[in-house]
């Protein structure tokens, strides 16, 4: 019996080697831990599209099908291996999983993390274990504003620009507005979003008045009372950083009552629900994508490639989390290859990759990205907002405005909260 098994495995191994082609089969693949939500409320809007983005990048990179300047296989010719970890279970669980990834699974680097709480908890562990870690989505500016990190990078912009940009767009679109309201989830993400939006709005238009700020619990699900309170107070504009099931519930419950038709609503992460055709987004709703992602990405060869590859593999359009994941992976690739070139063509070690990554400028499907803050560890990008309009049953965007990073992001060394309070000077 074992004889037959030996023959079969030899045949399979030979076949695999033959298929391996020109890959440097003697080099160990670069092993990357990919951490996103695969269960729970954040899986649907963020975790799953991000994971799809990673899967598409893995396939395309290992086949060398990405357009220049990323046309080498994997990272610098070395193929990639991804290990997917679920981000759910809380910070204690995530710290354990991070250590498991590094100590037991032996990953070379880690890419992931949607939740700000997890990012804050993981950063010091990454430093302790000296493991290169790239955050692809979490929004809190605290990572590089409160501390310095050597092994941690965030090749996507942080969340301050989402809400400062929203305030600017609101004032641009409705210069004569007098009142505003908000509905945000009552935890750090919603509280910070609201604080930044309100702070920025007050700076731009000091005489606006708040009508009501609703802060329901995360996952509350029933918003009829909040909708009544908002409609009764009749604001000129409504701000919300809701996402996922809460956002869908809000829209479904608001729709027969006409809240979003009567009150122009800004959805800072709204891009994630534009893909579900069962949810109808009313005309006049202002949608954000946390950057120039998704439908707001400028035309480029890289963008076209990404959208086509994603469509082929996943049979749908890439969402903004997919873009951010792709951007993070490509930024890491750019740093790796720069470090390799600086190292005379030899595979670089972690310190060399870090040196190359700091202050790097690279291109992504959403455009150019500069690692300009946090001593070169934090990226900046423009923020984009557009107004939804349904044309012939299809969702389109008009009045698309782009706000450059200097206008919506605090400069190096200044904390977001202080920067907004002091007038957002740039």
């Amino acid at each position, binding site marked *: 019996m074992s004889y037959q098994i030996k023959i079969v495995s030899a045949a399979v191994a030979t076949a695999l080697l033959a298929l391996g082609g020109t890959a440097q089969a003697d080099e160990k693949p670069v092993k990357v831990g990919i951490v996103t939500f*695969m*269960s*729970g*409320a954040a*899986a*649907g809007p963020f975790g*799953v599209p991000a994971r799809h983005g990673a899967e598409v990048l893995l396939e395309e990179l290992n086949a060398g099908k990405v357009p220049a300047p990323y046309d080498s296989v994997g990272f610098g010719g070395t193929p990639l291996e991804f290990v997917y970890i679920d981000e759910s279970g809380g910070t204690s669980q995530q710290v354990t999983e991070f250590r498991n990834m590094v100590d037991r699974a032996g990953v070379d680097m880690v890419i992931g993390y949607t939740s700000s709480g997890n990012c804050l908890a993981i950063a010091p562990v990454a430093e302790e274990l000296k493991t290169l870690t790239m955050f692809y989505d979490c929004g809190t500016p605290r990572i590089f504003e409160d501390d310095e990190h050597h092994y941690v990078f965030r090749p996507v912009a942080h969340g301050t620009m989402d809400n400062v940009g929203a305030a600017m767009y609101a004032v641009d679109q409705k210069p004569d507005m007098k009142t505003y309201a908000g509905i945000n989830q*009552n935890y750090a993400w919603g509280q910070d979003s609201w604080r930044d939006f309100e702070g920025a709005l007050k700076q731009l238009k000091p005489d606006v008045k708040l009508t*009501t*700020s*609703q*802060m*329901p*619990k995360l*996952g*509350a*699900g*029933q918003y*009829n*009372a*909040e909708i*009544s*309170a908002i*409609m*009764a107070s*009749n604001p000129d504009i409504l701000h919300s950083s809701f996402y*996922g*099931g809460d956002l*869908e*519930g809000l829209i*479904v*419950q608001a*729709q*027969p*009552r*006409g809240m979003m038709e009567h009150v122009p609503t800004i959805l800072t992460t709204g891009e994630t629900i534009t893909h*579900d055709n*069962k*949810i109808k987004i009313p005309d006049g709703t202002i949608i954000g994508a946390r950057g120039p992602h998704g439908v707001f990405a400028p035309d480029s060869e890289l963008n076209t490639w990404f959208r086509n590859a994603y469509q082929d593999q996943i049979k749908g359009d890439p969402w903004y989390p997919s873009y951010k994941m792709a951007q993070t992976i490509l930024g890491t690739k750019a740093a790796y290859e720069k470090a390799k070139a600086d190292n005379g063509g030899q595979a670089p070690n972690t310190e060399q990759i870090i040196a190359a990554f700091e202050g790097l400028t690279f291109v992504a499907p959403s455009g150019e990205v500069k690692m300009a803050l946090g001593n070169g560890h934090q990226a900046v990008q423009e923020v984009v907002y557009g107004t939804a309009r349904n044309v012939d049953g299809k969702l389109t965007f008009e009045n698309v405005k782009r706000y450059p990073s200097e206008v919506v992001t605090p400069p190096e060394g200044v904390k977001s909260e202080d920067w907004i309070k002091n007038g957002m000077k740039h």
Partner: protein
Amino acid sequence: MLMLPAAIIDGIMYAAWLFLVAVGLTLIYGVMKILNLAHGAFYTLGAYVAATFVGFWLAGDYNPYYSYLLLLLAGVIGGLVLGVLVERGILRRFYKEDQVVLLLVTYAIFLILEDVVKMIWGVEPYVISQPYGLLGSFNIGLLYYPNYNFVILGAAILSGVGLALFLKLTRPGKLLRVVIHDREISMALGINVQRYFLVTFVAGSILAALGGALTAPTISVAPEIGVEVIVLAFAVIVIGGLGSLPGAALGALIVGLVRSFAVHYFPEVELFSIYAVMAVVLIVRPMGLFAAAEPRKI
């Protein structure tokens, strides 16, 4: 100007929803003295079954008005099947244990059911919002309320009144009240308590699933919708008195109105007001507002 009537209407509508999801829990506690932590999972299941039925129906372009019937059917079938499975399959083995162990057993069942739902339906959310808007809406000044809310209000009133009449007037209902009062004496009198347990648990499950099914068109049906519901249902029946039907109604009304007024007038407070109310009621009158004080058994 509009705030007071809006706050009251919102409060009553929320109270109706709360009663619907809480009444099954108080029934099960009253008869079986089990605090069913898996209640939220039955609610979730009802919502998912409804989403499947109605989703299928609406995709097939059939008459959308029949979707309401499907919602009811989903609740009844889902609750019936799962209730029988859980009671016969798992819960029955633990009846001789004390209350606390049973609490943990229902917690374990809750964990298991959460993942079972994920295995069957996946992690992506389901939206079946058409029935919500189909019945039109009524308005008070600038405020529009969908008429669907009357469906929930009606279901709450029907189940409450129906249960009350059942317990008061029918023979099985009266025997059930005997079991609620004293399990041991009922057994001594020859009442088949085991059978009543099954019937009660299934009834409670159906009510929970019905709550989920009727709520489904108003939300996005996703894996974690049951977690919030357990806590709310808990608070409602604790305030009203564990095991008391009129208590559940009063508890729902109190929680609904408190929350609604908080949202309209003091949105800051909302987050833990329900726990504070629960704690206050428990401290002042631990058996709840309606249940009679129980003498200590020696």
